[in-house]
């Protein structure tokens, strides 16, 4: 116990708040089809001519922000087998599916897109077969293909590049009633301005979607105000799904949906919300409490005037389903 207390003291580092975006970051990435099912006999060698026609094109897009400077960004999206470090560094097959330059993602209008489409072609087949080759389950658990995303300032030092990855899973249709995963969704974001306690809170208002640059009149709050933001989920946000088990049976599960909260300034009481129940059986609350900033980002200087703070919500299920939402809150001193 004594040692633990001391270690606790000794281990206090001071790092940037991971939920506050200060520089170039990949905020999220989503695939239009996060999971695809194919009818295949796992006891037989894979038949390319049978697999590829069952796969639909899936487009993977990345959301990027660079709040520090307005600049053009270059990007590159590479398809490869999944690896532990989620980079396409191995000797296994890989292919660049998209690359280019986009305008500043925070200020350019319309919002720039950074996407690549996985087509059911030889590139995908090569990646699938390479991964299947070392799979002891022969594809029973599905094959995860990885899209590596590399983003950096145009003409900048490659060391400044940031890396991300997004998975698309190709699974056998076992059992036969199994359906592919769809991305989750929410209907709206509710915001309680000036949250103090649940039983005394004012009624919520709806937080409009869209970047700050796209919103002429975002929600206004005073510095230091606590805003409780709650995602209101769509009726079909939690899919019921069936998976095979190792002993030859099946298991039916209901998706849990989690939320990651990011902002341009201020502080989130909980950087994530939702997800599965905790060990005590508490259903995880969906909301987070965001405290509006009183100072300029990453400094001690008070806000000079009305400041628009971007808010991002990344919604995820546990089956590679992802959807993001952008919003904005104006802090008025």
């Amino acid at each position, binding site marked *: *116990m*004594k*040692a633990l207390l*001391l*270690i606790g*003291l*000794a*281990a206090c*580092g001071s*790092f*940037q708040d*991971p939920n506050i975006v200060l520089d170039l*970051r990949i905020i*999220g990435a989503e695939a239009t089809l996060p999971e695809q099912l194919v009818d295949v006999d796992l006891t037989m060698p894979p038949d390319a001519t049978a697999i590829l026609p069952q796969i639909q094109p899936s487009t993977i897009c*990345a959301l990027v922000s660079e709040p520090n400077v307005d600049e053009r960004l270059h990007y590159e999206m590479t398809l490869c087998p999944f690896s532990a*470090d*989620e980079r396409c560094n191995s000797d296994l097959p890989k292919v660049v599916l998209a690359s280019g330059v986009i305008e500043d993602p925070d200020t350019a209008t319309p919002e720039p897109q950074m996407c690549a489409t996985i087509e059911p072609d030889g590139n995908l087949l090569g990646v699938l077969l390479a991964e299947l080759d070392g799979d*002891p*389950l*022969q594809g*029973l658990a*599905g094959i995860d293909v990885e899209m590596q*995303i590399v983003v950096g300032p145009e003409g900048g030092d490659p060391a400044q590049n*940031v*890396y*991300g*990855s*997004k*998975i698309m899973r190709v*699974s056998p249709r076992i059992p036969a009633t199994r359906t592919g995963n769809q991305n989750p969704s929410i209907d709206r974001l509710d915001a309680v301005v000036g949250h103090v*306690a*649940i039983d005394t809170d004012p009624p919520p208002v709806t937080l409009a979607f869209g970047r700050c640059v796209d919103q002429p009149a975002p929600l206004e709050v005073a510095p230091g105000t606590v805003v409780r933001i709650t995602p209101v989920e769509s009726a079909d946000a939690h899919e019921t799904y069936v*998976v*095979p*088990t*190792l*002993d*030859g049976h099946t*298991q039916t*599960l*209901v*998706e*849990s949906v*989690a939320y*990651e909260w990011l902002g341009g300034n201020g502080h989130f009481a909980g950087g*994530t919300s939702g997800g*599965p*129940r*905790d*060990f*005590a*059986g*508490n259903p995880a*609350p969906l909301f987070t409490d965001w405290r509006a900033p009183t100072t300029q980002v990453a400094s001690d200087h008070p806000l000079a005037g009305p400041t628009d703070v971007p808010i991002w919500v*990344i919604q*995820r*299920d*546990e089956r*590679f389903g*992802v959807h993001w939402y952008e919003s904005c809150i104006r802090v008025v001193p």
Partner: protein
Amino acid sequence: MRGLVVAALLCLGTSAHADVTKPPKLLQAQAPDYPPAALASKLTAKVKVRLHIDANGLVTAVDVIEHVGNGFDEAAVAAASQYVFEPGEIDGKPAAIVVETAINFTIEEQVDDTPEPPKPPPSNAQPKTGPPNHGGDLGRPITLEGVAMERGTRRRLAGVIVSIEELGLDVVTDEDGAFFFHGVPAGKYKVLALDDKFDRLERPVEIGKREKLEVRLWMRPKGGNLYETVVEGERETLEVTKRTLQRQQLTSVPGTFGDPIRAIQTLPGIARAPFGLGLLLIRGSNPDDTGIMVDGHEVPSLFHFLGGPSIFNAEMLESIDLYPGGFPARFGRHHGGIVSLELRSTASDGVHGSAKVDFIDAGGYVRAPITKDLSIAVAGRRSYIDAFLGFVLPDAGKGATRIVTPVYYDYSARADYNLHGDGRASIFAIGSSDTLHVLDKDPDQMVSTNLNSAIKFFRVIGDYTRSFGGDLKLTMSPAWGRDTIAFSGAQAEATGPFTSIAVVNSSLSYRMRLHGRLDEHLVIDTGIDVLSRITTYQALIPLGDNPIVPSGADLSPSQLFRGAQSLGVGLHGDIGIDVTDKLRLVPGLRVDGYILNGIDRSAIDPRLVARYKLTPEWTAKAYVGRFSQPPQPEALDRRFGNPKVGIEKAEHYGLGYEWRPDRLWSLDSEIYYVHRHNLVVFTNDLIQNGDGTYTYLNFKNTGIHDSYGFEAILKREISAHLYGWLTYTYSHSDQQMEPGEVIVPTAFDQPHVLNAVASWKPGGGWELGGRFQLASGRPDTPTLGGTYDADTGTYVKLAGDKRSIRVPDFEQLDVRVAHAWLFDTWSIEAYLDVINTTYAKNVEAYQYDYRFRQRSPVTSFPILPTLGVKGTW
């Protein structure tokens, strides 16, 4: 002026394991002649001598330990050679014993400013014969009697010379510290008590007419708090490398919180454990590969939770032996090292005890005789972190409740019964409990948590030992234990747990051991070692048997019941053969049979030790042997383990020497190589069954560890004022978890480890101690960056070559200052233990920011002073 010669026993006995059941008792002493030239020159001296006393009580040889010259050495030897003792006994039998004593030659000026005492009548002249603790005319009644006792401990002191100066009468106290003067006439006298280890005591007494006076002479140890007498002696050596710390060394090593187990981490062969944790990292092995034995029975746990103190009260321990490799055949089922705790007998001359308080817990110990043959000791401790934790925890917030209650306690008790010619019997029980209760309610966050965890430990060990004549002893020892680990989590309002785990482990063991000298050339140590264990698991946890669901799935908890049974029967034998008077060979064999979850396993482990006495001071030694370790029965579970997992193996090789120029100093050094193979490692491998289903392999025997190195310890044993040791270990340990995988250093590999420990009692009741550690940094894997995982929202670390770099070297200086105050019947000690006195910022690991761009060192202890008070009576 007159020359005064005083002799007092410094130490006597043999090793802690060959118990001296009766010390030799001085029956007849011959006063040395003060060398005339030295007396004329007013020279004084103290001659330390070692007496070799045979089984008849006669002094067969006298060694001068430290020569002082000027004729003192010769005078001391001449006198000591004439001493006659009542023979000492080992295990109830008269035996040869080595005794050390010091003969002081001092000069006293005659002081004539006191009234002339009444002169004794001529008939009171001291008789020439009689017990040495009786003086005066033995034909007359006792008029003055008393007991010499140590201040602070009330320990009765044998061998103290008590004089009535005015009458020229001297006696020597017996083993109970008692002395008697017969026929001392009424009057005022000065009683003088002298002993080499104690301050000179002068006490005025007045004896009335027809009255008998009883006195207690409270002797103050020189310097106020001497270390207790070191017990050291000859012992049958069957092991090749054993490093021992005595009780006094276990509690006063700076930087260990007075913890006896942590003290052995300063010995060579043990790598430094990070964050001051009590891990025993012996010669590159995993902590689980080292067996912890209490009087031969294995115990699973040494420490209270979360790096807390040792469960064992140091007062209950006599010594701790560390066997870093090549250990005797009586130890098995482990291929790392062995730590053997020897319990302390409760035999006592009265009620003694101690109580200790520091800022985190308080405890006490009491030892007492119940009858002449029965004695007991009890000890206990409880933490009170729970009492003040609420003041330092962060506020739970408005309307929220947070209660955190961590409590640990331990208790132990032992009883010893002396059956005299039929041997000795004892029973020892020890238990501990660590519980943590957390109640957290936050209506605003709509969550509540009721968490309970408990770790409980209990052992009872019986022991019966009797002599079979000569030096042969039979020990029979059963033991029973029960260990529990439990956890439950629930919402505060719930009537039952949402998740829970309970692991209950019951063990029954029995050891029978026959050991001792068979004849002039043969020593044996043989016996059987039986261990039976039943473990049950009950859990309410989310269980998934599908390979698809990633983390984050909301699985409902389900009940799980599993059990594991193991039975191990070991036969062991070591035979020490004195091939010549210089060469001893010890071939050994251990045969183990196991039934693990209904599956049998076996191991045959031959071992060979050789010791060659090059000179009286130098001994060369070598060993080679095989060591086996069964997998945990859980690893053979058909669902969560692998029934085909086999026994782990290791071969130990060592070559070294020992140098013992005298009783106080020793140097022990050796090079070693340990090859461990067939190690059980976890695997995610899957195997496809004939029906097309799949099963996880879970475990396989593919791990390999190799370790080689050099160890040395220069040690000064406890003397009255000083002890310490300097150790150095060079080692290299690497591992390969399965064929084809890259070979990397083991997680705690440290090429260089140096420890220096010293404790000094300069006098005045002070004790000053220091401990310095210098160790290579642990292996680390470089972090090259991170990749944002869009499916989890976290960053995945991009790592460089595994364990290809090291954290910085570690250095730390700990200091301990203590002061003891002695009163007649008790003493009190206050101590300040300062860990990391120089505030060195030692890096134990690095933590990284969320995207692995920035890092911050996680450092070990900052400077940490600990204040405590210990009372002893």
